[in-house]
């Protein structure tokens, strides 16, 4: 089912257009990659969907964002708050400063919990999710403060927080850029498992084409606020149509033994 549909989205400041006629869709049980270099507008799209654009400087001048066939752009803030963090969850880019340094992990997990969706207590739900994201001793983690956890552990806590209310759509904005390769693979494998388990739709924002090849099913290539190419992953990688996509692919740095020719 079509979970999210962004149609002809235009985001402008007083002088410039930042997002230009962007259309994208996310289905259930699917990882969709949004690829682009820094400054291309990836995070702006994510924040538009979440309704978190700073309204003083930026405005959405036209277009629509539909989530489960409900228009989000015209929704009053009160109803938007019911969707944000519940049906649509967000994993921010840097785990190192996304957690409140003065609050225990337990409080941060439980803070976002909405009891009307669940039969179990917030604490049970938190322990369950901490276990699910790979912690062997969830009780200890619950009592910890953010500074006592490593970057990878904090990112896993953030994923657990985002899953507290069993969302339908997960927006992961470069969830692993701050992490090392081994951790990166661990976290993204976890997201992939969760996708299958809960039928999540994941909008995966990244600039790493390797990760796109490994995890995504479809992709959108964004360049200076415009989607220049979209399609199934295999088409994007093996039969790119646009110059910018070709440029991206040709600028990959590889060691010969890591590419297909040797294997």
């Amino acid at each position, binding site marked *: 089912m079509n979970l999210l549909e962004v149609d002809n989205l235009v985001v402008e400041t007083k002088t410039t257009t930042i997002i230009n006629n962007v259309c994208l869709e996310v289905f259930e049980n699917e990882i969709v990659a949004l690829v682009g270099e820094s400054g291309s507008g990836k995070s702006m799209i994510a924040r538009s969907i979440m309704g978190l654009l700073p309204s003083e400087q930026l405005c959405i001048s036209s277009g629509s964002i539909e989530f489960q066939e409900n228009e989000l752009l015209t929704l009053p803030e009160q109803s938007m708050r019911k969707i944000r963090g519940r049906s649509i969850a967000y994993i921010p880019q840097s785990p190192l400063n996304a957690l409140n340094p003065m609050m225990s992990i337990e409080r941060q997990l439980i803070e976002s919990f909405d009891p009307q969706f669940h039969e179990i207590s917030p604490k049970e739900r938190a322990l369950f999710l901490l276990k699910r994201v790979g912690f062997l001793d969830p009780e200890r983690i619950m009592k910890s403060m953010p500074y006592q956890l490593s970057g990878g552990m904090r990112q896993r806590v953030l994923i657990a927080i985002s899953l507290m209310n069993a969302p339908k759509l997960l927006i992961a904005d470069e969830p692993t850029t701050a992490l090392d390769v081994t951790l990166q693979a661990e976290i993204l494998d976890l997201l992939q498992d969760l996708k299958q388990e809960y039928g999540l739709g994941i909008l995966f924002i990244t600039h790493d*084409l*390797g990760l796109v090849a490994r995890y995504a099913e479809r992709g959108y290539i964004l360049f200076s606020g415009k989607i220049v190419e979209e399609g199934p992953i295999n088409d994007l990688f093996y039969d790119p149509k646009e110059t910018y996509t070709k440029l991206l692919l040709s600028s*990959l*740095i590889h060691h010969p033994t890591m590419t297909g020719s040797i294997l």
Partner: protein
Amino acid sequence: MTDSPLFELDRVSVDFKTSKTTVHAVHQVCLKGYKGKTLGVVGESGSGKSTLAKALLQLERISSGEIFFQNSSISSANKQSIRKLRRHMQLIFQDPDSTLNPRQTAGWHLNEVFSVHFPKLSKKERQETTESILETVHLDPTLLNRYHFELSGGQKQRLIIARALILSPSLMVLDEPLSSLDATLRKSILLLLKELQIKTQMGYLFITHDLSTLGAIADTVAVMYRGSVLECAPTNELYSSPTHPYTQSLLSCIPVADPHLEKKRKPLFLPATRPPLPTGTGCLFAHRCPLAKGLCYTQEPTFSGTTHTVACHYAQEAAALTGGCRGCNT
């Protein structure tokens, strides 16, 4: 490689003492780098890569071991002779923004080097040298009047490389020089670095956490973990037959931008199963190693092998872990 090494680290350790404990940032590292060659150092954050680079440049005091540069020991040299040596070794940092003065123009940064190291050069000579260096790094001379916020990321990194080149160093230490750049720019800077190396025969110490970049530029790769070098081998050999379990895990976790290939690969995860051993009591990787047994917990592994060295008690068994096939379980 019959020539003598450009630089050599011999059992170098760097310890930091805090009020409670001693942190072993670099532990018993032996490495050699040659003229016109690139030695790559890879490791996760906190593995001691940057401390190692600083130790080599004498910016960090070493606790034990010895460092040789152009065949003479520099770890016990006095301040004055170190200053003279610095001319031959240049350092390029990760973040171009923080190494440029925001209140000065691009040209000022180059001029500063002339005033410190070649104060006798005439204005005309300075200009000529500047122009030829800008040409080698493919930077437009009209940019010299701009401030750093008026330059793009790639232009800034080229300016910093130009600044380092004025002294025609014989050793260039590159600490994550590409991390802050966009994917499309990385390759062009990498090609520039390669081109410069061929032209000037500089030796590079290239530090990064990105194994795919390293594969494209390094001649030899050393893998660091918790301050120690676990494996060191010529690049081709390391990538085609990684031996240490940690190296195998690292290589298997790097995604390759090829969807068909990715379907066949499976990352090899080695999570910690017990608390890590303190430095000096056993193998530093034992708490994550699937093969760890008795000896690993009681004795530090020594390096075995000549060109492809591995710090592992059970190197042969380890090599069979993924069949030396970079984690592809086909």
